[in-house]
């Protein structure tokens, strides 16, 4: 069904990503698909890494540690951005093409009023790609 599953990863906010990461790994196992982790970094030192190269290594290490052992080696792909906060959607769209992903699994927040002004990345990505997009919400409040 799916051959290549792409997961955008923000190494600075891993706690919020636990659920989408698990979903992606489960799907990869089920469909025997290759996982590709995509990260975005800046030239400037950030909370995660002090150089772009440093970031790439961290993402690779992360990919090795999180992908399921289903016979398909995971890949990690790093994009450099001048302004990651605003460029994220475009980068994810570009990554889908570059990677050749047929499914994107990404975390997203619950819908809220501010979305009208600053739309969530997930919905924007879904509107502009031919790949399937799986938006993983955080757990419902009880």
């Amino acid at each position, binding site marked *: 069904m799916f051959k290549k599953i792409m997961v955008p990863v923000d190494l600075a906010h891993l706690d919020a990503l636990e659920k989408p990461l698990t979903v992606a790994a489960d799907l990869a196992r089920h469909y025997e698909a290759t996982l590709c982790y995509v990260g975005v970094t800046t*030239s*400037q*030192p950030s909370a995660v890494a002090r*150089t772009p*190269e440093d970031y790439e290594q961290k993402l690779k290490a992360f990919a090795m540690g999180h992908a399921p052992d289903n016979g398909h080696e995971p890949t990690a792909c790093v994009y450099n951005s*001048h302004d990651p*906060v605003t460029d994220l959607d475009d980068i994810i769209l570009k990554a889908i093409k570059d990677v050749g992903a047929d499914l994107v699994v990404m975390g997203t927040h619950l819908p809220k009023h501010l979305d009208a002004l*600053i739309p969530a990345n997930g919905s924007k990505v879904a509107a502009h790609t031919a790949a399937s997009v799986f938006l993983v919400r955080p757990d419902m409040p009880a």
Partner: protein
Amino acid sequence: MDNKSDKSSEDPIESVGVPAPEGAANLIDTDYHIGQDNYQLSPLGVNIDIHGAVFAVSSLLILAFVVLTLALPEQSTAAFDAMKNWINSHMTWFFLLAGNIFVLLCLFLIVSPLGRIRIGGAKATPDFSRLSWFSMLFAAGMGIGLMFYGVSEPLTHYGTALGGTSMGEGGARSDWAPLGAAVDDPAGAARLAMASTIFHWGLHPWAIYATVALSLSIFAYNKGLPLTVRSIFYPLLGERIWGWPGHAIDILAVFATLFGLATSLGVGAQQAASGLEYLFGIGGGNTTLVLLIAGITAVAVVSIVAGVDKGVKRLSEINMVLAFLLLMFVVFVGPTLLIATGFFKNIAGYLTELPFLANPFGRDDANFSQGWTTFYWAWWISWSPFVGMFIARVSRGRSVREFLISVLLIPSTVSVFWMTAFGTTAIKQLQEGFEGAASADLSLQLFMVLGELPLTEITSFIGIVLVIVFFVTSSDSGSLVIDTITAGGKIDAPKPQRVFWGVIEGAIAIALLLGGGLAALQAVAVSAGLPFTMVLLVGCYAIVKGLMSEPRPGTG
């Protein structure tokens, strides 16, 4: 290089320990993690990520200042004016001396072997094309000032130089002429006027920007420290920059940037309003000013939300094209030959007068050296954290030499050309008997001179658009910079924060414009230049120290 492998071992990801692929950079070994002192909140669904101390103290200081100025307009204006005047009359030598140090350091680095070091490590590649990079440097650096002073400064110096010197009470000179003036000598006065103007817009201001930008770049890209002003104090203060000494430096930077921007918004709105009044007969009252500032701020916020690539970069490029067209228009429609020969004559005049204009000691042209030169130096310096940080943000991957040539020599040359084109045209008009520009308000002089040339409506309109767009780019890049500093060096802090700063700039400009606090604001912005000069001098030390500790690439 070895510094990189012995980082904290508790982080499991780190332990993969591949050696730094970037090779030729020398990261500073620190335990500080960017964002470790930050607060991350989500009030009302808006994500916020700020450096607690820097954000809180600078916001409170700014609020207190605005309230104070609006509540006690007369007293506060008097107090701030007194502060500014004291700085002008007592610290002139310090500003002039420091300015010369910056120029000499930059020129030295261009020719020294240290110039071969690449910002971001030996294998780093530039993030932006040369043309976009240069457009952004220029738009952030002085775009707006060239619009405002391109005509008015040469005209003013020409007038005072022609008027000769005069003695006031107590033996001090009461005239505003530069150096020894050129009484009743129109050619000499024009030469002196152009040399003085170029002095204020040439090597010195760009050396100030270059110093801040280069020191920040080295400590962010080559040393791995956060992109914030405190990082350049690392060689001096070491790990203490993460504590209150560092907070204080960053707060000062925020303060200088915000007030510099708000002042310029106010002044720029006045020039745009003068232009609109001149062109369309729209009244230049407070309503127009408020609408203009609100409009500029709104466009700036859109540009902020669009991001660096789609916002400020695109606007800077548009402006570059417009400014180039306006310049070419003046060159070809104005006295073409005079401008062409004047360009070289003015450079020669500038270089001959430079030692005297830049001399910090024993000046007898007190009004000129204090009222003009010191004012400019303080002004450039109070803008330098903002321009410098912005330049640093877009300059990774350039070699130090390339960086300095592009930030120092090329913009200076463009400034000379711009000033020559507009100044020569204005002075020639005056010599031919057109007194309209010289006697008009400073903010109107550009439009008066354009009015004497053909196609006035089109060129004046382009002039107004340029003023407005230059302000949008300043407000945009300024908000990015303030946001980065108040987020402890994070450049990927949530978007609403940038919008917040953009709106605050506009609000302060409006509040102080209506409350009559613009003069106070300007005085404060200039006063902030004094402590920041010391920051810059530390920056010089840090540049040399930082570059010396970098592995030097082989010849070639």
